[in-house]
Every structure is written in structure tokens, then in C-alpha cells.
């Protein structure tokens, strides 16, 4: 594994640099540590940092850029005639790179010599047979042009890897030399090292920005791609969701959005009253003994993974509802998967979320307001209803909005409990589906990410992202504003 060896070499150079620079610094101070500007280990660390950071940075950038460059060169070699009906340049390129990987593996196994692998005039049939003998999966039609591209790809990648190794090691050595040259007793090693560490800390903190950027870019890029294949007016205007991978799909978002909102509504109908009253009781009435067991018990519900709630919906809630509302009972329900099934399970999941947020908010209402109310002769419940709750209302609204955003983004419960049929209906006993459930179903299985049926998932993801982000920002704004009122 040459890449591993390259990294090991750089690390070894860094280790050597640490030891040498440390010794050199001590020597320049005649072995008396008091004559040094910094502690000796800082001189060592300075050398190690100067070896590692530039070399590995270049390595990482190179590894990202190399496939892009090789791909663009090779894709220029593929004549348009090679790109068949229903195919695209990217797909052919993927095939070429698979062939190149296959040749690599065959060479590694010793089935093929390097000269045979590079032979420009090689017979396609013979080569394909060799690859098959080596146990490589060869796509149906390896044409001469594709083979030539694959061979060129290998040569290019090979050269690039060699150049990369040389460049990285040269950089590491240059860093070592630089660090050793500046190492002497008056060199401000600690300041240099601390500056680099600070740089690392900043880099770590910016990963949050990079992640957001990554989310936004991956969503926008693929969504744009989707809208080039499928009109946006249909996506936002059509009331039917009927994907068919053969083509002629109707991909209207409204049935999914309706399912999402309906299920979230049912969930909130369960979670908000229970969570809110639980929070009121725990913060205003319950003694410390009850608080000490009831609060953790409710919070256990929050620690349970959503897959558990999904299974609970499918195998416990659904059958119970069916036995009451199904054909044996009232005859309203025809399957275990329904809006109500998913909604109730999701509501249970959200109870601790609503209760702990509301608890915080109710506790933040100043005691003086309660005391004032008691002083006027109000009972405890009158105080809560007429003084505490109105004061806490904005915060509670914020909490409910956060819970809503949770409900909208929840996936596993609806995938297992809500069903797969997209419907615009008011009947809570019918199966419906949601945005998240459809993202999962459109993106699992083998897709080439080129058909509108697969790409629609990115547009759905974008809708979901915008929706939850908006709700969160709004909710946090309300909560923050409310907090400031009493601080």
C-alpha cells in the first residue's frame, strides 16, 4: 500500500525532525535550558509541524484533485459514438474506470503482466478473457476505444501517483530543512507552535461551516439537475405522486407534504397536551421525590432510537388500532399502517422533547409573578393558567415549533408505520406517506442518480431542509426573545 508507506515516511521524517530539532536547540544553548527562548519540546514540535502539515495538506488536495483531472483528460478521449442511447458520458467514464480497476487487480494477481496491461494494440477479446479469468467483473461491451481510455487512465494515474509521492516527500524534507535552519536558542518556537495550533483549532471550528456548505451544495446541485429533467412547475404544482422508473412519472410534492403535515399534526396532538401538562405538574406541583423519578422516566423515552418507535408503531400500535377500528371493530381501518399509527408513535417520541423544553421555560418565569398572584388570592391552578402560562407562552410556542420540526424530519417511524401510498385525504385511518419516507424509498436500491425518479429525492431533501431550518430559526428567535424579557 504505497499511500500508507508515504504517510509513514512523512511521519517518520516528522519524528526524526522532532528529535533532531530538540537536540539542536539544546546544543545551541550549550545544554543550559535557561538560555533557550522556549522549552526544548517546542523546537521539536515546530519541526514536526513543518514536516507534517504542508506535506499532508498537499497529499489530501492531490488525492481529491487527481481523479477529477484524470477523469477530465480521459473523458476527452471517449468519442461521442461510444455513448449509447440512454447512457451518458459519466456512465461510460465509470465503466472505463471499472475496467482500469479490473486491469489493476489482474496485474496485482499476476494473471497479467504490466506490459500486457499497457499494450496499446492488445486484442480486446483476449484482454477481456484475461480479466474474467482473474475473477474481475467486466461490463458487457469493452470496446477498443474504452479499453484505450482505460489504459490511458491507468498510465496517467500511475504517473500522477509517482509524482505525488516525490512532491510530498520533497515538501516534507523541505519543511524539515527549514525548521532545522531556524532552530537556535533565540528562535521563538513556542509562539510559532501556538500559532499553528490555533490554526488547527480554527480549522476544526470551520468544519461546521463546511458541513452546512456541503449540505447546501449537494442539495442545490442535484436539485438543479432534477429541475432540468423535470419541470419545477410540475413538482410544486401537481397533486399526484406517481413515480415510475420506466418514465412518464408524475412527481408532485403536495401529497407527500400533506402526509407529513397530517402525521406531524397527529403527533403534536398526542405530545403537546401530555408533555405540557407533565411539565406543569413536574415544575409546579410535584415534590422533589416525584420529580426525581418521573423526570428521568420521561427522558428515557427521548433516549430510545427512532427505529424502536418505528417497530413499535408497526407491530404494537398498528395492531392495537386495527383491533379497535379495523374490520373486527368499527370497520374504519384496513391495514396496520396508517396516519394514526405513525402519528401516535411519533407523539410518544416527542413527549419528553416537549416536556423538558416547557419545563425549562416554566421554571424561567420569575417567582415574583407567582407570588403576586397568590397575594391577590388566586389558587395555584388559577396562577398557572392566568399568570405563568401567558408569561411562558412565547417560549412554549417555540418549543412546539421545535417539536414540529422534529416531527417533520422524522424518518424511521413513518417509513415503518405510515405506509407507502401518497394520498391527499383527510381520513386518519388511511395509509399515507411523507417527504422523508419517499427520500428513503427513491434513493435506496440501485439507482444511477441520473433519472428524475432518483433525483427527486434531492428536491424533496431541499424542501425538508428549508422547512425545518425555517421552523428552527423562527423557534429559536422566539425563545431567545422571550428569555431576554426576564433576564
Amino acid at each position: 500500500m504505497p499511500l500508507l508507506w508515504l504517510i509513514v515516511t512523512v511521519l517518520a521524517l516528522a519524528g526524526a525532525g522532532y528529535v533532531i530539532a530538540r537536540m539542536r536547540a539544546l546544543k545551541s544553548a550549550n545544554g543550559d535550558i535557561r538560555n533557550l527562548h522556549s522549552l526544548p519540546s517546542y523546537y521539536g514540535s515546530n519541526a514536526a509541524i513543518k514536516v507534517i502539515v504542508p506535506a499532508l495538506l498537499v497529499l489530501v488536495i492531490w488525492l481529491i484533485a487527481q481523479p477529477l483531472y484524470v477523469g477530465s483528460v480521459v473523458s476527452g478521449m471517449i468519442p461521442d459514438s461510444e455513448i449509447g442511447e440512454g447512457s451518458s458520458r459519466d456512465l461510460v467514464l465509470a465503466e472505463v474506470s471499472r475496467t482500469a480497476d479490473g486491469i489493476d487487480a489482474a496485474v496485482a494477481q499476476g494473471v497479467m503482466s504490466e506490459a500486457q496491461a499497457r499494450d496499446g494494440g492488445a486484442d480486446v477479446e483476449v484482454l477481456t478473457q484475461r480479466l474474467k479469468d482473474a475473477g474481475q467483473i467486466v461490463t458487457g461491451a469493452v470496446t477498443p476505444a474504452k479499453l484505450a481510455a482505460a489504459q490511458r487512465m491507468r498510465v496517467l494515474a500511475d504517473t500522477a501517483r509517482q509524482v505525488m509521492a516525490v512532491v510530498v516527500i520533497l515538501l516534507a524534507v523541505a519543511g524539515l530543512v527549514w525548521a532545522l535552519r531556524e532552530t537556535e536558542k533565540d528562535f521563538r518556537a513556542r509562539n510559532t507552535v501556538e500559532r499553528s495550533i490555533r490554526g488547527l483549532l480554527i480549522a476544526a471550528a470551520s468544519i461546521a461551516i463546511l458541513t452546512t456548505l456541503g449540505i447546501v451544495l449537494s442539495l442545490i446541485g442535484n436539485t438543479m439537475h432534477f429541475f432540468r429533467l423535470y419541470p419545477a412547475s410540475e413538482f410544486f404544482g401537481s397533486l399526484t405522486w406517481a413515480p415510475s422508473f420506466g418514465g412518464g412519472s408524475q412527481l408532485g410534492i403536495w401529497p407527500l407534504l400533506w402526509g407529513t403535515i397530517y402525521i406531524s399534526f397527529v403527533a403534536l396532538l398526542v405530545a403537546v397536551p401530555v408533555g405540557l401538562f407533565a411539565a406543569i405538574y413536574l415544575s409546579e406541583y410535584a415534590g422533589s421525590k416525584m420529580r426525581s423519578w418521573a423526570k428521568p422516566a420521561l427522558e428515557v423515552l427521548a433516549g430510545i432510537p427512532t427505529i424502536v418507535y418505528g417497530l413499535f408503531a408497526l407491530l404494537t400500535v398498528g395492531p392495537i388500532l386495527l383491533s379497535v377500528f379495523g374490520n373486527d371493530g368499527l370497520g374504519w381501518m384496513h391495514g396496520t399502517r396508517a396516519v394514526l399509527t405513525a402519528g401516535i408513535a411519533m407523539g410518544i417520541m416527542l413527549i419528553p422533547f416537549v416536556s423538558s423544553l416547557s419545563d425549562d421555560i416554566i421554571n424561567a418565569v420569575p417567582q415574583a409573578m407567582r407570588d403576586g398572584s397568590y397575594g391577590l388570592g388566586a389558587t395555584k391552578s388559577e396562577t398557572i393558567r392566568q399568570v405563568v402560562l401567558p408569561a411562558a407562552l412565547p417560549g412554549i410556542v417555540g418549543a412546539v415549533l421545535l417539536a414540529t420540526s422534529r416531527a417533520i424530519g422524522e424518518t424511521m417511524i413513518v417509513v415503518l408505520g405510515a405506509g407507502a401510498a401518497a394520498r391527499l385525504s383527510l381520513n386518519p385511518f388511511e395509509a399515507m406517506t411523507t417527504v422523508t419516507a419517499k427520500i428513503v424509498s427513491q434513493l435506496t436500491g440501485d439507482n444511477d442518480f441520473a433519472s428524475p425518479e432518483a433525483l427527486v429525492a434531492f428536491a424533496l431533501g431541499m424542501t425538508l431542509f428549508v422547512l425545518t431550518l425555517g421552523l428552527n430559526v423562527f423557534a429559536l428567535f422566539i425563545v431567545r426573545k422571550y428569555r431576554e424579557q426576564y433576564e
Partner: protein
Amino acid sequence: MTDASMPSGGKAAPRKSLMIEDARTKRRNAAEKRFQAYGLAAIAVGVFFLVVLLWSILASGLGAFQQTFIETPIYLDEAKVDKKGNRNPEEMSKTTTFGYAPLIQTALWEQVQAAGIETPFTKSKEMKALLSDSAAAQVRDYVLSHPEQVGETVTFRILAASRVDGYLKGRVVREDLARDKSIDAEHLDVVDRLVDAGVIRKQFNLDFIVGADASEKRPEQAGLGVAMLGSFYMMLVVLVLALPIGVAASIYLEEFAPQNKVTDFIEVNISNLAAVPSIVFGILGLAAFIQFAHLPMSAPLVGGLVLTLMTLPTIIISTRASLKSVPPSIRDAALGVGASKMQSVFHHVLPLAMPGILTGTIIGLAQALGETAPLLLIGMVGYVATNYPDGLVSGFMAPNSAMPAQIFEWAKRADPAYYERAWGGIIVLLVFLLTMNIIAIILRRRFERRW
């Protein structure tokens, strides 16, 4: 002027003792009681849901840890398994599992006859319905690794068919047999007698915890082990990446960051990322790591990267809280004796905040361990978890599943026998989560200092 001297206007209310409630007070007190009852009811409902949830997990899942086995002595017939008679495993491996199935069926049939069980069956072939398809492979593997045993009679503990297992656990009932093609009432009569004879028994099934997933037709053989390894490698990736990055980011934001627009922007980003639905991280993983970076699909490495991005906000938020709880006097003291800012943070503040950071990290890991949705998008679905990874590299790079994804896969399969396994898988998952949370609580109790 005092109130007493005021002329009382209108009709004066008759004086009553304060001890006697009037109608209005009664109403108000009743409202108070009602309100309190609502609160209690809400808590009761919440706890009731918790109890129902835990009860249905335990009641439906504990069965998965037991499996029905058939104990039977099998005569390893040389004519069937080693036709050339030279005990060469390479040549013996030409006999496929189809060659072994009759041996097992004959062995069981002989036991049925030996036990004196009256059945309408006449042929050993009809024992097939009682045996798992995996039995032949099990016997074959044994013979290939112990060629010297050929020609002798060896007692095997083989898996019973899923329907037999279901019958013993009460999942398969006689009333439904009419619709069931794979077993009939006569078979179940034989099963009853064999249970009496001690041939068929329910035993603890370690393979459920350490085994690999099986095909859809063989629920009796499916296990969680490979998916567990997948989860383990993912958690390694998360721990190795999320802990240092999260701590570094928190240190910068808490100790060094100047109050400016960039810092604000980072903080807003972190708090928003904490609330982004997990499935969106799955989309990010698919687009960034698989579409763009061409990392392999279904690899625990990719899963770990996605979960790292997802847990980072959690870890950063809890780390910042524990850094903040270290009093400024510690920093001042360090600066006072001549440490640099960096030294005061890394030598003094960070070690003191470590228990809190570890607690937050463990809780973040527990969250990541239970996450399913993003893994589905990057292809970590259950049916790929059929082979153990060969080594460290393939552990990270070879397609694998994760515990929650495996549970999801089982829940989707049509055979109800898989539901029991899904619940059982949930018990295993919850045991892991419980352990992690208990460790976090102990860490917090033992090491966290209140200043």
C-alpha cells in the same frame, strides 16, 4: 377613617365562617383539583407509554434469544459424502449440500421410528419440513473440517425449521395451518412427540448475537453479529474523528474566538446543524462521499463519516458547556505563573473539563449508534451483512450493515419470524445504549467537580 365607620351600602352578605366553603370557593377548589389531576394524568400517560413500549420490546423480543434445536446422531455415510473414499477434503467438497440433506433426514426419521411415534409419514424425505435449510451446510462444514469422522455416527445439534420454532414459541398455531404450505398438522404431531422425547428442544442461541444475517427464507439462522461489527467500526470512526475535532472546535469557540461576525456565523451554523433532520445528513453523505469522492457504497467508513458530521454539534455543545464550567480563576492562576494562554488551556482547563467532555461524547456516540435513516441512503441496508470482514481494512471498507439498519431490514421482511428477531435486535441495541449511558452517568458522578 376606618372601614368600620363606613356605611354599608346595599344588602350586606350574611357573615359566615371561613371554615365553611361557599359555592364559589367549592368551584374554584374543584377546578384546582381537576387541574392537578390533568397533570398527574399526563405523567401517568407518559409513564404508561414507556411501560407499554418496554413491555412490548421484552415480551416480543426475549424469544429471539432462544431457538429450537434438534439433537440427532447422524451417520456420515461414506458412500454419500466421500465417494472416492480417500478422505481428501478437496474432492469431498464436490458433494454439495443437496447430497447431505438425505443423511440428516434419514437420521431424524430413524429417531422418529425409534421413539415409536405413529405418523402417517412413510418416507424420510418428509422430515424436510422440520429441518432448517442450514442444517445440510452445517453438517457439510463439519465433515470437510473433520474428514476422519466419515463413516462414523456423530451427534449434531441442528436448527429446526422456522415454523417448528414458531410452533414451540406459540407464533404458529394449528388454526392457521391451512394457509401454510411449508408445514402441516401431521408434522406438528411429530414435533409434539419429539419434544416429549427430548429430541427437539428450545435452547439459548448464541448465534443470534454473534452470527451473520441469513437469506429471507431462513429466519432461524439470522444473527446480528456482522451488523454489530459494522456498528463497531463506525463508532471507531466517529470516536477517532468527532472527539478531537469537536474538542478542538469547542476550545477555539470557548477560549480563543474573538467576538466577531465569523464566530457568530460558526455558532449559528452549529446550532442549526444540531436540528437538521438526520436524513439530510444521509443525503449529504451520498452526494459528498459516494457521488463526489467515490468512496465505496455501504462501507462503515462512509457511515462513520456521516455519523461524525451528525454528532459533532452534540459533542461541541456539551464540550463547550463543560469548558465553561471550569472557573476563570484556574485560567488566571495559570496565566499568573507565566503560562501562555495556550498552555493554560491545554495543561489546566482541558484536563479539568475532561470528565464532562467524555460524558458528552459517550452520549453523542449512543445517539449515533441508534441512528438509522442516514445509513439507509448510503447503502448500509441489512442484506449485505452476511459475511464477516476479513481484517481491519475490510472492516472499514467492505460493505456492511449496522445494528439499527439490520433491525429495519428484518422488520421489512415478510416472514413474521423476522419480527421476533427485530425485537430481539432491539433488546441488544438497547443493552448497548443502556451500558453507554450508565458509563456516562458514572463518569459524571465520580469525576465531575462542582466549583
